[in-house]
């Protein structure tokens, strides 16, 4: 296993574009901290975002994992191109001739995907911990380490998304087209959901219940948007007479769906590679 990771690390470490994208990704995650410095001056009222409780434990785990997940596209580019470049440079063929099996090839790529997700999760954990310790109103250990399931969900979400990218890279063989296809897939999911929701199953929950099994939808459902959970927003909503009644938690069945898709994508990548003549 270590050998496979070493092989993939060797391929990535000398690629300048991969390095730049990975560094950009991690630097952007640290930029979440910059939100703290956002200040508005609305006339006499001085509004500071950091004071609104977004960096309070345990809410910060939810907020940061949601924001950081938006940045995953940077790593997605690296992953799609590390797959499709093996085709365009024909190095996949040479790897196999040199004695790598097709199974090992997929394993080395998926291990890399997992390691990327793991590093990103650890990195986010550290950034959030530092931010929280600096700004949170509560710093008791029991509060700090509650709601850790958001970190697990973040890891599963990234792994699932990257496994999808890996599969698209193998399927389409060209990085630009694969990324384009990812976008088209996202639109398709929205269209299918729209048709289900507004045409076929009007006024019922069925459409939502189907859509949560879609690959991208299931990943985005994993961590729900955190903004309406902010106390300031909640207060405002209550004053306006409406009330948010939303479940922000992480659900094990959602996790299972994403893990299931991850397994499907890895399996499809492998069977596709096995079937193809290079």
């Amino acid at each position, binding site marked *: 296993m270590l050998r496979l990771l070493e092989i993939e690390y060797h391929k990535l470490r000398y690629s300048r574009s991969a390095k730049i994208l990975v560094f950009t990704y991690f630097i952007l995650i640290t930029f979440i901290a910059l939100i703290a410095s956002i200040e508005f001056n609305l006339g006499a009222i001085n509004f500071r975002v950091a004071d609104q409780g977004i960096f309070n434990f345990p809410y910060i785990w939810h907020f940061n994992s949601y924001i950081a997940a938006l940045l995953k596209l940077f790593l997605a580019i690296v992953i799609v191109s590390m797959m499709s470049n093996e085709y365009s440079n024909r190095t996949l*063929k040479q790897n196999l001739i040199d004695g790598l099996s097709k199974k090992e090839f997929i394993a080395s790529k998926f291990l890399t995907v997992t390691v990327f997700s793991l590093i990103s999760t650890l990195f986010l954990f550290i950034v959030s911990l530092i931010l929280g310790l600096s700004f949170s109103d509560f710093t008791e250990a029991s509060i700090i380490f509650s709601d850790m399931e958001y970190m697990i969900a973040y890891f599963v979400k990234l792994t699932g998304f990257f496994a999808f990218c890996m599969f698209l890279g193998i399927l389409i063989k060209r990085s630009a087209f694969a990324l384009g296809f990812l976008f088209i897939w996202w639109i398709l999911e929205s269209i299918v959901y729209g048709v289900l929701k507004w045409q076929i199953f009007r006024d019922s929950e069925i459409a939502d219940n189907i859509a949560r099994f879609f690959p991208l939808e299931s990943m985005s459902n994993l961590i729900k948007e955190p903004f309406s959970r902010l106390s300031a927003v909640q207060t405002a909503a209550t004053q306006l007479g409406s009330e948010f009644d939303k479940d922000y938690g992480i659900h094990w069945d959602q996790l299972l769906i994403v893990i299931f898709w991850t397994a499907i994508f890895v399996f499809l990548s492998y069977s596709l590679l*096995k079937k193809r*003549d290079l």
Partner: protein
Amino acid sequence: METILSLKDLTKKYGTLTAVDNLSFTIEKGNVYGILGPNGSGKSTTLGMVLNVVNKTSGEFAWFSGNMDTHEALKKVGAIIEHPNFYPYMTAAQNLALVCKIKDVPKSKIDEKLEIVGLLDRKDSKFRTFSLGMKQRLAIASALLNDPKILILDEPTNGLDPQGIHQIREIIRKIAAGGTTILLASHLLDEVEKVCSHVVIIRNGKKLYSGPVDAINASHGFFELQAKNMQLLQELLIAHPGIENVSEKENIVTAILREPMEAETINEYLFEKGLSLSYLVKRKESLEEQFLQLTNQTTSV
């Protein structure tokens, strides 16, 4: 003798097209083999199948003793197919280091192998800056990293300039002299003739011949002769029992032999009959002539 690779009824179909048709042959240790065939005859497909990149339709192949996974066996093989394929953003040495990791061999061999192909001074240049000849030589160095039991080369001189071709052939000759088994696929007859001891000839995916190069057809060669009295020469030759066929072209008589015969024998025979020759050469058909004969035979059948 130790068998390196054996193919049995190996077949590859692309839809209705049969690229490789029930091909069987065996590669023994220590010989230099050539796979000869025109473009599109199935050479590369055959190599692709035994090298794990093309799926076979039917038939069998076995590496070494046959009880090893193909990809494990390939770690003991060195192979380059058509293009030299490397990561363009890595240097020569970095590319070879990656191959070492894949093949599970120590990196200590890198400099030694780069020296063999004459690229040691360019080891830290990026692959994308290399000329085709240098890329091809790097590919050979990479194939040699594991001191392979067999080196497989597919059209190694394709697209190279004469100097590049010469360099590659010199390297191959050196490697062959060291006792490494080599399998060389080519459509260039003189290339195979110069380097190989054994040859497998295929056309349209079918095997036409496999065996030693000098036994392609059972011919004993032919004489080319010239004398003042050409008519008498022809008559005397036809009368000789050891000669099968006599023909004249551009004032030179060609006599094809029925049985082995030395040039002295025919000279003495003609001199006894009162004819002295002005020109006498014994020749064997070149591989090219034999190859054409062989492929023509099957066309007419």
